[in-house]
């Protein structure tokens, strides 16, 4: 299980009569039917572990259908948590412990459990009917096929019903507490306190005391069962990690984007106007922002994706911070309007939480296949800056950065996230006072000198907003005459304006940090990544370097413009491996931009890279995997 510390200890714990083994890191997964509340207990385990001081990274995996037929493999919902006393970047490739609430959950998830791992199943759900729904010919608990694991067959449903019988809940509601029983059992197994979840239950179910009481009892019963049942002979402990001092909070990528947008608007001293049409996996940003109205957040649920984009352009024209959030298909619909924002040079941010495509594709699964769409998906010569967040917590920084650049350069900024980091969570350090500089906003007021399309030294036109005395002017999608902003069909003017728009976006390179290299500045192999694949690639390169392999890592956040020194870095390596969850979109860009040969590692399975996949590729390129 996990990584056992050199000084593995088997002491007698103060509170439990059973020995505790200390681990550096462990990954677990809760899996059940989509109605079983697996996402809920998964996020509870995450919060408890984070509060305990572990580094955590999580990954939920849920079906696209709200309620697929119960008990089928199509309806299985899972939540994976990696918790560690060391720095980690991913939710882990495979898990050390698996809770399977029914046969379908076992079937879908068993392959990801490490050999010798802990497997907890609810035996009450292994009925003939459920086995058949999961397409098991025979009960796997009886065939011996699970002999490679530490199987704990627990009648979770019956135990839960027994524990909550005095609350007065009917059998249906009582049975729904079984997820908390499973959580309690895992809390015991990994030596986590119950307090944080008990507090959460009290708050969440304050209005239904019987439900609150039942969930508390189920949680405590699960914990007590681990402590007393003879089958559980050992528990595990993962010590707190050494994080940078400060206040921490666990955030999903989508929560971090919402928080980042509010923060950016506050730093700019402006209202935030968020226009959006619900779409998986971006809707949580919309939901979260509705809770921030005391920050003058104006949330507009538009009639469609196009209206959402257009409304933020209107809001930007009128002086607000305009942000929209969507996913791939919605992004496609917004593109004409993004072109309008490029043409009218108005500041706004378009968040695309990427999912599997094309078309409706895989709505709940992750992919990075909208890079070309972000860079190239509009009519005309239509450059827009593109930034990609690299992890859940990084979504916060990225949102602030996107708004900062949008306002500074009077341009729409496309911010790419993906389903993996949107739903995944990790600790986020609360910024210190003064850590976040103000976003400087300048609105012209002098009618004598004002020209709508005059440019400053960075190539940026002024942001004159309606209501300003004497600055009346007209903008629009037709080509503008340089400086005056009048309509112009003049051939030379169009050439000049095209160049000016391109140069303005290129100038952003002066405002973004130089590319950093993890590892050596030159060598045999450079792994390149962007967006949500950061964690897997960084972890793989860390491990390969620990094994003595000559590999470094470059993770690119700004995809347009690219960091000024990126080309030079690429040329310092004999081979360049570009890892991305698409068929080579960034690779195409790097080849076109720098004329460097590259090797692609592409995956489009709706799932993130595992560390192992990247390590194997590195090993293959460097002459055989060392293990």
């Amino acid at each position, binding site marked *: 299980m996990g990584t056992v510390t050199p000084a593995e200890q088997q002491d007698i714990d103060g509170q439990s009569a059973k020995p505790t083994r200390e681990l550096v890191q462990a990954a677990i997964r809760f899996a059940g039917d989509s109605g079983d509340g697996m996402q809920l207990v998964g996020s509870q385990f995450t919060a408890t572990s*984070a*509060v*305990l*001081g572990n580094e955590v990274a999580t990954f939920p995996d849920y079906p696209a259908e709200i309620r697929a037929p119960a008990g089928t493999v199509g309806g299985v919902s899972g939540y994976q948590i990696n918790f560690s006393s060391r720095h980690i970047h991913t939710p882990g490739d495979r898990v050390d412990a698996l809770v399977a609430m029914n046969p379908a959950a076992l079937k879908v998830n068993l392959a990801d459990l490490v050999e010798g791992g802990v497997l907890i199943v609810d035996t009450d759900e292994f009925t003939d009917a459920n086995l058949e729904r999961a397409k098991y010919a025979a009960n796997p608990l009886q065939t011996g096929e699970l002999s490679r694991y530490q199987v704990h067959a627990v009648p979770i449903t019956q135990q839960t019903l027994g524990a909550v019988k005095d609350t007065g809940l009917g059998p249906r509601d009582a049975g729904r507490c079984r997820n908390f029983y499973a959580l309690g059992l895992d809390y015991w197994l990994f030596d986590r306190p119950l307090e*944080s979840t008990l507090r959460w239950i009290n708050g969440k179910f304050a209005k239904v005391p019987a439900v609150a009481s039942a969930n508390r009892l189920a949680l405590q019963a699960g914990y007590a069962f681990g402590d007393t049942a003879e089958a559980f002979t050992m528990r595990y402990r993962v010590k*707190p990690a050494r*994080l940078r*001092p*400060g*206040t*921490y*909070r*666990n955030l999903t990528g989508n929560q971090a984007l919402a*928080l980042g947008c*509010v*923060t950016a608007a506050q730093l700019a001293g402006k209202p935030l*106007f968020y*226009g959006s049409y619900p779409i998986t996996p971006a809707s949580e940003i919309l939901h979260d922002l509705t809770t*921030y*109205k*005391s*920050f*003058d957040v*104006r949330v*507009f649920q538009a*009639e*469609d994706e*196009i*209206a*959402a984009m*257009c*409304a*933020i*352009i*209107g*809001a*930007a*024209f*009128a*002086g*607000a911070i*305009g942000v929209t959030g969507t996913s791939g298909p919605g992004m496609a619909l917004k593109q004409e*309007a993004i*072109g*309008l924002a490029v043409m*009218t040079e108005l500041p706004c941010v378009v968040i695309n939480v990427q999912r599997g495509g094309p078309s409706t594709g895989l709505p709940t699964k992750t992919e990075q296949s909208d890079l070309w769409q972000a860079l190239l998906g509009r009519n005309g010569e239509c450059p827009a800056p593109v930034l990609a967040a690299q992890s859940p917590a990084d979504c916060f920084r990225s949102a602030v950065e996107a708004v900062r650049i949008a306002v500074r350069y009077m341009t729409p900024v496309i911010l790419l996230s993906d389903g993996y980091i949107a739903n995944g969570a990790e600790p986020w350090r*609360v910024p210190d*006072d003064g850590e976040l500089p103000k976003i400087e906003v300048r609105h012209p007021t002098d009618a004598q000198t004002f020209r709508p399309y005059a440019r400053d030294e960075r190539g940026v036109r002024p942001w004159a*907003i*309606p*209501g*300003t*005395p004497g600055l*009346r*002017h*007209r903008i*629009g*999608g037709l080509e503008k005459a340089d400086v005056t902003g*009048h*309509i112009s069909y003049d051939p030379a003017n169009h050439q000049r304006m095209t160049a000016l728009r391109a140069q303005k976006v290129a100038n952003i390179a002066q405002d973004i940090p130089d590319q950093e290299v993890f590892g050596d500045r030159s060598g045999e192999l450079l792994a390149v990544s962007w967006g949500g694949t950061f964690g897997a690639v960084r972890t793989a390169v860390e491990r390969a370097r620990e094994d003595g392999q000559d590999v470094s890592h470059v993770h690119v956040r700004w995809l347009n413009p690219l960091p000024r020194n990126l080309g030079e870095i690429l040329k310092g390596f004999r081979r360049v491996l570009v890892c991305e969850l698409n068929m080579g979109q960034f690779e195409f860009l790097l080849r076109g931009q720098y004329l460097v040969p590259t090797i692609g590692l592409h995956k489009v399975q709706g799932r993130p890279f595992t560390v192992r996949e990247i390590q194997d590729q590195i090993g293959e390129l460097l002459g055989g995997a060392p293990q």
Partner: protein
Amino acid sequence: MSTGPNVPPLTVREFKSDQNVRWCAGCGDHSILLQLQKVLASACADRDRTVFVSGIGCSSRFPYYMDTYGFHSIHGRAPAIATGVKCANPDLDVWVITGDGDALSIGGNHVLHTIRRNVGLRMVLFNNRVYGLTKGQYSPTSDFGTRTKSSPQGSIDHPVHPVTVALGMEITFVARAIDVDVEHVQYVLRRAAAHKGTAFVEIYQNCQVYNANAYGWATDRQTKHDHVVYLEHGKPLIFGRNRDKGIRMNGETPEVVDLAKVSADDLIIHNEKAAEPTMAYLLARMHHPEYPEPLGVFRAVDKPTYEDLMMGQIAAAREKDGPGRLEALFRAGETWEVK
């Protein structure tokens, strides 16, 4: 309508931008532009707080000719852009200028939802029943059977009737006028300007090049009085050169009657403030040549505006939680300290 403090009376000239108007000679747009400039000037509208937003089409060139703030956007999307403008700054006076193709074909969805929300803006729809800028295809308001470049055998689309669509979305203000009837155009625009909430004005507008004389029946001096009826709040529906005809209800159907035979007391009395839009809808369904077509204000009722409700929720949140503070926001939820 915003009027600045101590604004001296303005002239039409002060609402004209420095751009040359490039519509065709004889186009009804010229008249509408002038009437709107007159209305704004006479109301002392604050040019610095007035925004014209348009989509694409001949009429959508409008903002370039107004010395106000202006946004000539993309096809069909003006209501969405204008919604963003109004929500970002509810103090602005926002006008949407659109055409039959822009508003009812490519942009139909935004028109519906803007009306439904009652966003505080005025939509002026120039209805010439043809695509002008793309040089003469049938539009969503073209009559069935209209022969154009894209329908040489006659259009097989049934036309949409803008006022009925607006009423279907429970518009709070809807009116109709005809471009050459300048006094009446000014009247409905003035009424629209004074309305709080979405005001929708359909203006029958002549396209001299691709659909000339489409409204000849309503503009011909000899015949127009028999073909249009002016709606006046609280008054019976009477029309005709000698005001000798009226409209009464016959069961569920409006009926044209001769006032020599029927008392004016039996006619429909127009009530623009009726709580239900049903009667207004019935009037909007009266089409030439079966009926005289109604001009004027079909409906004018009060309802909270979208931007007021939006700002109201923000004010309520601030009342409850105080103005947002980032330090508190960052530390909301479960946090932990690392020393």
